[in-house]
């Protein structure tokens, strides 16, 4: 059984399988305003808003209903496009789409409206980058986006005094989210988690479900059981610990992006080009690392920054260095019954220069052809330490040890980098329809040289405009 609020009304659903997505349920229940365009998180037609409460605050978040597992909604409030207007009075997000003629065929419109809805209540969407990010997860095939973007500009940050603002203010700081069902558990204590895992040793762990959701909608997977980590305490916390930062496994990537802008810009830079807003509003750090994808975008950053992961099981805690975490194609060092609790990232030494890059065909909502993260320590123009990590260059995210060795002791110049880059040939990149091996190695090399070219001091974006390639100071 799951209980949540839909457009202000309490909803109780009995006998819902853990593989039921919110989109499926909504449409089956006759709430057809929310559309299905792909059922895999790519189009945003199914966008709805969830009032999410985490250690980072309470906020309305736009999420893709096709990737939300219904039982995970326990205790939460959901708003769909049908819940916005008050009688004939449209919500500002709807009014703006109407005024700006942001709708042609109208199929993307409900999702667009809901992304605008999130923006209406955000206080951090002043920049044009943030606005681009806000709607890049809503594909529209008719309008060319200009009117949608204008509608967004109309409403971003309005935060009107209305029922939605009130609901956010009134949301409980610690909503009761523990849930259970026939093949489902969402424990809110660690002991509850160990009990659930003891009961179903084969259970699939899930957090944001942006990966697991795809297995459900695309491969029609039925799991022995699903255990959700969403209600566990402290998982969504960001903590300063002497000389470093501890990032909870459950921190939503959109929150991490905001928090790391100052604290760890190199990470923010990478997150800038990650998925789309709706995905980042659900996706977590733990999910990104534990799926162990060779093209997962956070792994290279954490590898370059020499991070350690904190792992917990009924038996206790242990720490695993990032370098030892990925043990094979889509395989991690986690033993059965273990969950990732946090990633601990030491502050880069003062002599370090860091950068992260993601190269893909599309600026947003794309899988990397190559991703890279570098941490190079330079003293008096000479490299004293180097950690060079790549995604897309092997079966797992990897460090380029040979190139690192070649770099240490060399002068930090484009020529020095070029010489070291020759050693990248030790890697054997993926060769597939997304990009050829030739392209991946050429770009990996060019990224390293380009990094060295950027020189000292605060960096402007590398090539004015080529934002698919983000450099970070």
């Amino acid at each position, binding site marked *: 059984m799951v209980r949540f609020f839909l457009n202000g009304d309490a909803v109780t659903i009995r006998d819902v399988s853990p593989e039921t997505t919110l989109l499926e349920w909504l449409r089956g229940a006759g709430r057809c305003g929310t559309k299905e365009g*792909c059922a895999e998180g790519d189009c945003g037609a199914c966008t709805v808003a969830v009032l999410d409460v985490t250690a980072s605050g309470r906020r309305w978040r736009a999420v893709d209903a096709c990737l939300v597992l219904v039982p995970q909604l326990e205790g939460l409030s959901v708003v769909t496009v049908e819940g916005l207007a008050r009688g004939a009075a449209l919500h500002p997000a709807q009014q703006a789409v109407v005024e700006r003629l942001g709708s042609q065929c109208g199929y993307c419109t409900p999702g667009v409206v809901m992304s605008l809805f999130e923006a209406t209540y955000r206080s951090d969407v002043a920049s044009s980058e943030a606005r681009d990010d806000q709607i890049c997860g809503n594909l529209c095939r008719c309008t060319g986006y200009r009117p949608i973007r204008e509608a967004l500009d109309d409403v971003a940050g309005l935060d009107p005094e209305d029922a939605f603002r009130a609901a956010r203010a009134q949301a409980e700081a610690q909503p009761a989210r523990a849930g259970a069902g026939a093949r489902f558990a969402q424990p809110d204590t660690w002991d509850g988690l160990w009990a659930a895992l003891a009961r179903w040793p084969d259970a699939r762990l899930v957090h944001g479900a942006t990966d697991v959701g795809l297995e459900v909608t695309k491969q029609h997977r039925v799991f022995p059981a699903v255990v959700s980590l969403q209600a566990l305490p402290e998982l969504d916390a960001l903590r300063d610990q002497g000389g470093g930062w501890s990032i909870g496994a459950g921190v939503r990537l959109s929150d991490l992006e905001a928090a790391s802008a100052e604290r760890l810009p190199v990470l923010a830079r990478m997150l800038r080009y990650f998925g789309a807003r709706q995905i980042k509003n659900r996706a977590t750090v733990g999910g990104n690392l534990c799926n162990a994808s060779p093209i997962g975008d956070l792994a290279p950053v954490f590898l370059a920054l020499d991070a350690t992961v904190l792992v917990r099981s009924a038996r206790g805690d242990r720490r695993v260095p990032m370098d030892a975490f990925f043990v094979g194609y889509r395989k991690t060092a986690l033993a059965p019954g273990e969950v990732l609790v946090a990633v601990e990232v030491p502050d880069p030494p003062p002599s370090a220069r860091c950068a992260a890059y993601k190269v893909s065909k599309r600026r947003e909502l794309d899988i990397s052809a190559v991703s890279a993260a570098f941490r190079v320590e330079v003293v008096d123009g000479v490299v004293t330490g180097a950690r060079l990590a790549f995604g897309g260059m092997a079966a797992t995210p990897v460090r380029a040890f040979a190139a690192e060795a070649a770099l240490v002791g060399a002068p930090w110049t484009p020529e020095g980098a070029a010489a070291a880059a020759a050693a990248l040939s030790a890697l054997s990149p993926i060769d597939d329809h997304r990009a050829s091996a030739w392209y991946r190695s050429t770009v990996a090399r060019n990224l390293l040289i380009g990094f060295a070219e950027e020189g000292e001091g605060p960096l402007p974006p590398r090539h004015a405009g080529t934002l698919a390639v983000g450099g970070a100071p």
Partner: protein
Amino acid sequence: MKQLVTLQINGEAQTSAVPPHWTLLEALRYGSGLTGSKQGCDKGDCGACTVLVDGQPQLACCSLAVTAQGKAVTTIEGVADARGPAAIQRAFDVCGALQCGFCQPGMILSASALLARDPDPSLEAIREALSGNLCRCTGYTRIYEAVALAARWLREPGDMRGEQANVMGPAAEGFSVVGAPLRKRDAIGKATGEVRFTDDLVLPRMLHGKFLRSPHAHARIVSIDTSAASALPGVFAVLVGSELTTSYGIIPWTPDETALAVGKVRYIGEAVAAVAAVDEDTAMKACRLITVTWDVLPPVLDPERALDADAPLVHEADPKGRALSSNLCKEVGLSFGDVDQALADAAVVIDDHWTYAGSTHAPIEPHCAIGSWDPDGRLTVWSSTQVGHYLHRELARVLGVAESAVRVIQPAVGGAFGGKSEPFDLEFAVAALSRKAGRPVKILYTREEVFYAHRGRHPMRFHFRIGADASGKITAVDNDILLDGGAYHSFGLVTAYYAGQLLSGPIDFGTYRFRSRRVYTNKPCNGPKRGHGSVQPRFPLETAVDEIAHRLGIDPIEMRRINALPERGGTTVNGQFVPSCGVRACLDAVEAASGWKERYASLPPGRGLGVATSMYISGTAYPIYPNDMPQSAVVLRGDRSGRITAFCGLNEIGQGSDSVIAWIVSEETGVPLSCIDVVSGDTDLCPVDLGAYSSRVTMMAGTAAKEAGERLGARMRDAVAAKLGVPPERMRRRTGFWFDGDDPERAVDHVTALRLAEAAAGMPLGEVGAFRTRKLGADYRGGTIGASPAYSATAHVVEVDVDRETGVVKIVGVWAAHDCGRAINPVTVRGQIEGSVYMGLSEALMEEMVHDGKGLLKATSLLDYRIMTSMDTPPIDAHIVESIDPVGPYGAKEAGEGPLHPAIPALANAIWHATGARMRTMPFTPERVLAAIRAVGTREQ
């Protein structure tokens, strides 16, 4: 001790026992549960508790309940009625007259009392009436505006929402509607999620269907065993190809498809069987229980290989059963003038190969259809189609029933772009499954299935030769085109012609020859995508023209001016008559807006500008199946209530065609837009329109609407003239009125005008109008293909920034000018231009249908098949050029497809300008761009 009190609350007698000290407010809130009336002070200071007692505003907190015995009390709960919120309530919302809303109930009742006694209150009167109602939030201005607006609405009834929402600016000179920036009719319904698309419809007892699709690109079906599937509980019908063998195809001469594969499959993803069950999961489970025995055949995937003598045959026989010996599905060869001589004489010749990648429409709504039979054996199919009429015909044929026994209804369609412009397996399957199961059946494609249904842009390979004289005049074009058709014919015959026939303007060639061959391969079938067949050859033409310009030292924009067709009455080298061509004005517009002259020579390395032009048809002269009936018709029904309903079979797919009809009818009759309904996309109710393709709707349905509107308008005019005693020629109209041109004070409103006309006719008002096919086109075989009543013209300038380390191209800006003849509504035209530009740039930069060596489509999701997000889409600066065409309604041509064409070559030309690399293969992915840059060696890598 309580006392019995009877009150008439909101029209209903309620008797309750109340303590004698209760105020009316307490009795309402606690006794009757009517908490709408607010308590702000409980001592008569704020007015939040205002109710009407016998029609008079009264402070409910200040009167005892018992004193209201027997009186009529109106509270806020009684203001709205079954029709929805009252005018005053809507007005409050529209004017933004509320913030916290606590004062609103009292305000609204005070205002209602005022409006009841004074239909046209002055501002002073409004202030006076509301003086007892305190508001702490709004500053009152908006509240006063709201009361005034409500008063206006009450005096002039009409659709309040529509009226305030629709008009955003003045009409063109001499018109009352045409040329005005108007909102589309469905904007609000779309913004609230109320508009119903096909998958939003649910019928009682409806089943859900799923397909079993082929895992092989080419295989014979030896046998199919469906017994286990049929036996699965919850399954109501299973269908295989042999039950529905009548073949169909959008072109009547080439019906080579069947609803489900018969005998063999020709691409991975082709439907083999279909199941209807209680839900999708059960249907899917049943599909997995079907066993097919395959005889797997070698597939042919490459179009050149397909022409080899020993290539496997995709089709062994043609639709008539005659054996085929090759995969060549259509070959066209046409020649105009002595091309070889002209090439030999040319000062510059470019001779090279180009490759255009296949791309797909990817509408955000996946295809969906519902089939249902009524007890008398009539079939209704609801479908997300853009060609309801052709679907109607083919359904009847394939299912073996009379056309009169089929009704096709097209609900709102969530984007189509050519991807829903022929019948698909699901439409036949829902009909047949529903017939078998005796219950309605719905099928919704998964996104993956949308990719298999495809019918997207044909991949084309070109061997293109072009020559120019020293002055830059294009003297010869020779184009050898190979089209990869995929597994079926689709529109193939037309595509093969269009690839050559539509290229001959706005750049005028001295001589022209093309050969175009379309071949079958074992891949999902290609068809028409926005700019059918004519987008691809623009890529070689416009990039080669650019190259010639640079070789001759001519500015690329000037180069296009030198070669442009005349502005009025031009004829192309292949004999198509072009009544108007505004390409020069388009070039002027983009040249100025992009700062071309100042910037072209001085951009830093890595930055580049590129230009390109194009021309496109506004409908085709002839329908797909030859007949002498009109291509489009409109029936108007005038009602004495003051409304007009327009019936037209057109297919609204988001482009705004319903709105165009309403605007035209309003223009011609003076009936306000809020009083015009459009019924479209229903083959039972509407006269024919052939569908939303080849940019024909404004031209054809618009002409039909204009003709019908003129006729109905003439009747209204004559009837009013007779009433006023003035000659009909002196009558004039403006929105809502007919009046005497010499004495505008003598006017009759549109409601009266319709009544007078009905009285004069002595029968209900009905009128018809149509677009009839005129003879067009040149006098040779194929000379009518590409013949159109009018042609639009477009020019783009694109600016890029190319990262030379990664090959990533960022589009910095795009300026697009489009000659649409007359913009009946500039806002929707702009929407079409912007949407087209976006779509063209997207396919140029990242879209590609990629298959592996076995014919498996590699990108079947919107993540792997990349389409531009808002992030990649540059600011689009759209300009409208109005050449006022002599043929189209009010001079209108088209705007839905033409503006896409130049995007691709303009982008390629900009990449060249930025890097020196000439892109010959699409899309321009980072990998291709990086390779091209390295090949020219403009920079050490």
